[in-house]
Structure formats: structure tokens, C-alpha cells
């Protein structure tokens, strides 16, 4: 069974590689490469997979899931400029793809050995663009 919890955070970022020219970055990232950055209302959907506990009837305690997501993702990233304030985005480009992978990395250890495991991370950068990441496995 899959259960999904949604969270939101608002952050700014700029997508550009220091090794590329302004024109090359523009070709690769479009307006997202504007040097002073811009922001999004990110929407995160965290999906866990597991069987309901026969006693509680729950796959995972959603209050606990909310706390984990808040502590590992929302609090560090909400109302921050990702490139300057949230490592590793001082070193890697904060694309939606890299953000989804980083969020997976932060969440996954919290579900090791429990009844439920992390199944998928879906990150909406806008309503018209989202990324799914389900770990290294292909």
C-alpha cells in the first residue's frame, strides 16, 4: 500500500554553472539562469510503501512523517536562497532533479528498517513541471 504526504516550501534559486558563459547557461536553463535568482512555491509529495500495522491500521504515523519532512526538508529550505544557504547547492546546481535527489537522501535514513520504506519523492517546481525520484535503483 502506498501513502503520500504533501508539504510545501518557498525558496529562491539560480540555475547556472560557473564554468559556462552567460549565453551557454541561458541556452541550458533559460530564464532560470538570471543571475540574481528567482523563487518557486515548491510542492513536495513523499510516498511511503508498506502494509498497515494490524493493531494501529496505519502504514506509518502521518504525524511522524510530517515531523520528519518538516525537520529535514521544509525548515532548512523554506524561505531560503538555496544556492547560498542550503548545502550542497553551493556546489551543485539546484535543478528540480538535484533537489529531488537531495530530498530523497535526507528522508531515506528515517525509514530504514521500519515497516514502511520510502517509495517515491515527487517535487513540483511549478504546476507545469515536476520530477519523480525513487532512489538509485533503476
Amino acid at each position, binding site marked *: 500500500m502506498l501513502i503520500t504526504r504533501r508539504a510545501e516550501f518557498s525558496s529562491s534559486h539560480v*540555475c547556472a*554553472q560557473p*564554468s559556462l558563459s552567460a549565453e551557454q547557461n541561458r*541556452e*541550458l*536553463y*533559460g530564464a532560470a539562469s538570471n543571475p540574481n535568482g528567482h523563487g518557486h512555491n515548491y510542492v513536495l509529495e513523499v510516498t511511503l510503501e508498506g502494509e498497515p500495522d494490524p493493531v494501529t491500521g496505519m502504514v506509518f504515523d502521518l504525524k511522524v512523517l510530517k515531523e520528519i519532512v518538516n525537520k529535514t526538508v521544509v525548515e532548512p529550505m523554506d524561505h531560503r536562497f538555496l544556492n547560498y544557504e542550503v548545502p550542497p547547492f553551493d556546489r*551543485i*546546481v*539546484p*535543478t*528540480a*532533479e*538535484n533537489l*529531488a*535527489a537531495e530530498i530523497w537522501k535526507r528522508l531515506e535514513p528515517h525509514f530504514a528498517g521500519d515497516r514502511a520504506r520510502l517509495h517515491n519523492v515527487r517535487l513540483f517546481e511549478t*504546476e*507545469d*513541471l*515536476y*520530477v*519523480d*525520484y*525513487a532512489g538509485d*535503483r*533503476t
Partner: protein
Amino acid sequence: MTRLTRRYKFAASHRLHSGRFSEEENRELYGKCNNPHGHGHDYVLDVSVSGPVDAASGQVVNIQILDRLVAGQILRDFDHKYLNADVCEFGETIPTSENIIRVMENRLRAHWRHAFAGEWPRLEKIRLRETRRNAFELVS
């Protein structure tokens, strides 16, 4: 593996009618979609692309190129058009959402490798929402 989904919107009209059936049979099969002068929808098209994330760019796909490809191969011909008359594939083929989505896949595939020179990502899924109550998915 990471999957990126990009959403596009277009408005188009169509009429579902097959020359193989009688007027009554068409009416029975397609219902209101068979009304003689056609009707329209605000379609929502989700294109899902998957692959490894490039270490330097942090991207599965160059979104600028994907946008240009979809604009040139699909939106330019479909947006604010009457599909039966304005899109060449629907001369014989009935523009049901099932057929529309297949035409779109063919168009994207025909230009995919050329558009994404070098490392090209995988076109994984196309999802077409005709109305809030109807959606069609083609998984590669």
C-alpha cells in the same frame, strides 16, 4: 533514474465521426462528440522524460530543447485548431484522445534523436487530459 514531467496546454476542437458507420451508429458510439459541427477542449499534455541526471547540468533533459520540440511538433499544429481539418494525420484517423496521443508520440519520436544530439533522454510517458474527468496515458 529520475523522471521529469513537463506540462503543456492547448485548446482544440474535434468531431468524432467514422465513415464506416451509419449516422445512428455514430451517434450511439460517440454520443455528443458526434455533433456535426464539432466541439472543443482545453487539453493538458504531460510529457515525461527519464534518465540519469547529468552531473554537470543537474538535468535529465534540457527543458529549453524539450519546450521547443513540443512547441514545434505539437503545439504549433494543435493549438487553436480544428483537429479533423487542420492536422494532417486526422484525414482518415478519428481524433479520439487515444489517436491524438499516438500521433503526438510519433511526432516526438521522429525528431527526438535529432533534437537531443548526443546523450538523449528516454521519452517515457505521454499523458493527455481531455477534460478533468478524462485522461489517457501512453507508456513507452
